[in-house]
């Protein structure tokens, strides 16, 4: 699966560990949630970056004590129809202030990119290579957003207010 980050297809520097894969000496790793929580201290002490793969039915608040030390949080879309990870992403970004890499994994298709970007994801394990190639074009599909999220995009309501105020100047 191609990884898109910063709008470009990049090499995935992280190795995904299973629950029982022996821990490699060095290098960057993504670790399943349960393993991470049980070995957190040891994992964070080794050299190399550590990220966690967090299931969409587990309370994201459990990650809060570690957020400052995590290089990546990978949230899971077991099916593109299952939208729980959108809520987790927004909570991580907006409530818990997570600033590291936030990765979308699983059934990630181009038609979700805009939603995912708005929810705070910045890297994407895209299921179809053609979708990964179309990332930038798809990500720019919309120029109008009605809801405030933590992504910094101005909402339609506020853009209207700005327009209204600027029109007011000089009248």
């Amino acid at each position, binding site marked *: 699966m191609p990884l898109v980050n910063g709008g470009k297809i990049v090499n995935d520097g992280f190795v995904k560990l299973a629950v029982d894969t022996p821990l490699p000496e060095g290098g960057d790793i993504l670790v399943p949630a349960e393993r991470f929580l049980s070995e957190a201290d040891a994992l964070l002490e080794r050299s190399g970056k550590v990220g966690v793969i967090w299931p969409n039915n587990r309370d994201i608040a459990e990650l809060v004590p570690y957020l400052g030390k995590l290089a990546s949080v990978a949230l899971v879309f077991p099916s*593109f*129809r*299952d*939208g*729980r990870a*959108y*809520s987790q992403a*927004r909570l991580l970004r*907006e*409530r818990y202030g997570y600033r590291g890499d936030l990765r979308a994994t699983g059934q990630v*298709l181009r*038609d979700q990119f*805009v*939603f*995912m970007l*708005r*929810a705070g994801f910045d890297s994407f394990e895209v299921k179809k290579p*053609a979708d990964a190639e179309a990332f930038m074009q798809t990500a720019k*599909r*919309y*120029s*109008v*957003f*009605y*809801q*405030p*999220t933590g992504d910094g995009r101005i909402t*339609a*309501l506020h*853009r*209207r*207010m700005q327009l*209204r105020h600027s029109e007011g100047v000089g009248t």
Partner: protein
Amino acid sequence: MYAYDEIDRTLVNERVLEFRDQVKRRLSGELTEDEFKMLRLQNGVYLQLHAYMFRVAIPYGTLASNQLRALAHVARKYDRGYGHFTTRQNIQFNWIKLAELPDALADLAEVGIHAMQTSGNNMRNVTSDQWAGVAPGEIEDPRIWSELIRQHTTLHPEFSFLPRKFKIAITASDHDRAAIKVHDIGLRLIKNEKGETGFEVLVGGGLGRTPFIGKTIKHFVHGRDLLSYIEAILRVYNQYGRRDNIYKARIKILVHELGIEKFSREVEEEWQQIRNSSLQIDDEVIEDIRSRFIYPAYEKLPHMPDELRQAAADPDFEAWRKNSVAPHKIPGYSIVTISLKPIGAPPGDATAEQMDALADLADKYSFGEIRVGHEQNLALPHVAKRDLPALWKALDRLGLATPNVNLITDIIACPGLDYCSLANARSIPIAQELTRRFANHELANLIGRLHINISGCINACGHHHVGHIGILGVEKNGEEVYQITIGGRADEGAALGNLIGPGVKFDEVADVVEDIVEAYLALRERPEELFVDTVKRLGVEPFKERVYATR
């Protein structure tokens, strides 16, 4: 009317472009049907029995005449010359080609109409009172808040893939014409003791396989907190709503399983975290939306003009006026309901010619505005009383003056087995037969207000649970069987109907309804006692006896 600005129009156009691309990828095979399904549903496109069905949103039921003409154009150019108005303030077209859908959407976008989120597991078209803004005694126009919610829930980045569909309805009147108690979230606009605008919030209502009446989760949410409170409910639902079983995925099941106290604690906890965020609505934003609802320049008109006095001599006009014309908040004006239930026809259908002609009548007599109600009727919301006789004549020529609004032949029915791939039984022929049985206006008038609702399957698109008489078609051993409930209602006193006994065959339904009605006429205390009130007073038993004694 709400006027879209450049910002709204840009979004609708961007959506059309996206869907055009999605259809192209589906037609080329780049998208599988499974992947495409969710995308097309989010644009109101179903694959039905015979063809693709296209469902277009009419937010809070308000249409401008040019928008109605655009719907007529779609019916004519891309479909078979008619459309079907539904119980959700939508219109459906039944025979549209997938390859032409993007063009149809683009044509509608020109007049600010879209099909966003009319289906799929997301927040559906916001519905409201079809008399909003004109009903006497309303707290304020609920469409201002409906529009705020419409915007907020459109392409919401967190809630576009919910466990199941999600419906919000708003009313601002004592008499609830929006059926808020059978919605996922029901909102009742109220004022607190300080005179501030806010909402009583109900949650977990819904029909379908497991019907529930919504429960009050909060007695007063201030207007400025409305979006954050809705967002809190949705976030709790998105995280904890069941996804293992499609039949248990609606919020009503979550509310039921957790109990309203525990559910409301979860929501409260979430809400406290976000209520002072950028979701808080300042007055300026509300004023901006309010300013884009344009109200007619009403004239000062007499309460009883000569035209009306003279027309009163015509019993046909009077019959129509009595049941189609309702009081307006401005003296000298009326709200006119247009029955889409002519005797013998499928409820809720209108031809392209009728839509065009109605648009013209709206321009002539109703400041260019039309409303769509959940009863599958239309309304002209600002008709001067002096124009009523002329309007009636024009409607009559179009076959749109059937004087049966709120009477027994004003039936709500889903498309049923004739169109729908989910249905197990026919609805339309049952409705047609019942309208013929009760075609006699004197009899229908004698019976008084009585709502029959028919669904062709358990999904309850015809809202049979809340029909005064509810008829549910099911399939049993390869045969259509109809279960009949009585005593349901969808208004402020919302209640679910009770089953009167074993299901009956297709051919027997109309007879059974006649028996029920005869029993009612014999049992009611006085002519003003509505059918549904007689049922409430006496229970199911006497009706059951009457129906099954001879069967």
